[in-house]
């Protein structure tokens, strides 16, 4: 089952996610028509639910459902309208897949990404839904630069970072930034891949080598994180894990669903979270 691995502090700045940036937003107006056309094309590809990023779209649904349900449970209300009063941030938002979905639930979202191209793409797509204009603000920055720039911690009711932590150089520092962004009592949601034989097959061998639907080298097995390791990191940063659920993708029917951690009973613990999982934690009130 789980390796009882002990995570080590790696105080190294990741070039991609931890670079200090002075210029955090770049106006769209500075782009050449040629570039604009390029981004439009990439954006259209990214957002095509049957295109090459199709499984990203498929997996987005249960993730957002999980976030919605956990938030409703946390606020002890069955009514979706409580979400309209919340402020959220999507760290590493990419093209804005989850950011848009969360904004449609009513949450006022900030989407940040270290890659300028992603922010361009996300803003481009945001234009297609006029009801999102007032709900999302995209910025080209990192969690750390946001904390550094605004000198403001404890900003958000919900901090979301999906499929990002397995790409960062220093997961602990990353988790700490996420927790710092959340208000006391706020929620932090992370999704990533377990470090197991199953995840190696499901997340590397099959998509990168067999189906070749994902570019080679997209994922690095050594950076996969077992759930209890992530829980310990969150605990150390002052956030208590509320719930962990596994995500199972059926590529044939193109459906993805949530399974509980121990979906196969007590004899096979943690079987549900052998590969992809999503975790929600609550930042302690001071």
């Amino acid at each position: 089952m789980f390796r009882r691995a002990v995570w080590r502090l790696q105080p190294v700045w990741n070039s991609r996610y931890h670079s200090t940036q002075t210029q955090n937003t770049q106006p769209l107006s500075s782009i050449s028509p040629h570039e604009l056309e390029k981004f439009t094309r990439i954006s259209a590809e990214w957002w095509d639910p049957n295109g090459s990023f199709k499984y990203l779209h498929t997996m987005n649904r249960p993730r957002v459902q999980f976030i919605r349900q956990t938030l409703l449970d946390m606020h002890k209300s069955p009514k979706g309208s409580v979400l309209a009063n919340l402020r959220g941030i999507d760290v590493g938002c990419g093209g804005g897949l989850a950011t848009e979905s969360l904004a449609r639930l009513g949450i006022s979202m900030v989407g940040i990404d270290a890659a300028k191209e992603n922010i361009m793409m996300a803003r481009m797509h945001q234009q297609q839904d006029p009801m999102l204009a007032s709900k999302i603000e995209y910025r080209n920055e990192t969690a750390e630069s946001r904390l550094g720039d605004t000198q403001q911690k404890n900003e958000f009711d919900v901090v979301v970072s999906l499929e990002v932590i397995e790409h960062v150089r220093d997961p602990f520092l990353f988790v700490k930034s996420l927790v710092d962004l959340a208000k006391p009592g706020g929620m932090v949601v992370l999704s990533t891949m377990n470090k197991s034989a199953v995840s190696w097959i499901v997340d590397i061998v099959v998509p990168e080598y067999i189906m070749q639907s994902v570019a080679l080298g997209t994922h690095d097995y050594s950076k996969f994180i077992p759930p209890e390791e992530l829980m310990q990191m969150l605990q150390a940063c002052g956030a208590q894990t509320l719930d962990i659920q596994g995500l199972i993708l059926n590529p044939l029917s193109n459906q993805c669903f949530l399974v509980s951690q121990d979906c196969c009973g007590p004899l096979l613990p943690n079987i549900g979270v052998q590969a992809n999982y999503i975790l929600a934690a609550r930042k302690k009130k001071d």
Partner: protein
Amino acid sequence: MLQRRLLLSHRLPDLGLRRGLATQQPPLSDGSCERYDIAIVGGGPAGCTMAAALGSLDAMSHMRIALIDSGKLSDIRKWEPPIDTYLPRTLQITASNQRFLKRLGIWHWCFEDRIQGYSRAVVTDALGKGKIDLDAPNAYSGDPAFMIETKNLVSGLLKAIDHNGSCIDVLERSKVVNMASASSTNANPAAVKWPTITLSDNRQLQARLVIGADGANSCIRKYANIGTYGAKYAQYGLVATLCLQEPISAAFQRFLPTGPIAMLPFPGGFANLVWSLDADLIQLLKSRISSDIVNAAFRLSPIEMDRIYDLLRTDASTELITNEIAWRLQSNANATNDSSAPPLVAAVMAKSSFPLQLRLVDSLTADRVALIGDAGHVMHPLAGQGLNMGLEDVQCLVQVLEGAATSGEDIGVVLDRYNSQRYVRNLAMQGIVDKVWHVFGARSSLVASLRSLAMNGLDHLPVIKSRMIHAFMQ
């Protein structure tokens, strides 16, 4: 400084994106283009159920929904039922759909004392003397089907919308005069690609999703370029309210070579008549229909009925026809005592008629457009399944939209899930009802004896009968 940068980031370039948005705006002097998440076009039973169902969902509570109808819906909402009669336009609702309406808290908004549940249906064949008596055993709790006046249902639905659909704007007396479909309006990839509806008062509104519930001659279907094929049956439906000599709680249907005639129960000794007739007969019967003719149609043989029609064609006096029928019924004592015939009709009240057709659509969806109810399928009323299919459309679409809403998806782009679940089922149901019509429309004696053999056979096979009832109840 930071704030300034932020502002800058939202100002868009000249060649860019906002202009795409701007061209979507109506070229009107008042320049208003309201935006909705969902625009439901058509305030009939299907459209109103859709609106009431969406209005009752928590997942939809933050959405803006418009219900558009050219009629005056507020009058229907305030409808006061007449005390001494029932309206001729009625609907049959299956138990599963009734449970759906109950679950949504809609059913109790209708006048429940005007709804008749029934558990027995007697179907007979005039030519071949076949008979099948479907009686739902007591094991099933409740009735498998309900009869309700269309106006009673719609009025209840509108009350439910008024009561708990705070997110729904009812735009009454607004006719849709145009809909620019999503893809045709702008080639700019960053532009808003939502359909734009123009109303008769020149108002425009744009919606993420347009639901066409505007009936058999749907204009939304036309604007969305969804093709249809099908045929008119060259038949008309004659509907009327009947006053019976004794109350009934069963449905009676008799297949005549000219088309099926059905008597459906209502409370207090009333019933609803649904009679399919050829074009020439409908002209005769619409003005001359009487209790005698209805009694004859449920009892006399097709040859005798032809004789009555001939009398009507020669403009015979009412008295002559009454005498003719009375004489024939008396001489045919078997027919009068037949247990499969309904009680005698005392009076025929309010009546109306409409053409019957079969219409199939190429698809139930187009880009950001979904069709429900008769807009997506028109069929023969002989099985009373038209609205039930419509309500199943609603159940399915509501489920798809709720799932999409709770996962934050754009509800305008998930319609494939609806089409794939409903399209084939609808075609199958339409096909079955069409086949039944053709089989029973045949005058050939071979077909007649075969179908009667089949019906009588089925009548003596309780297992298959209970399965049929079960399938009917779902």
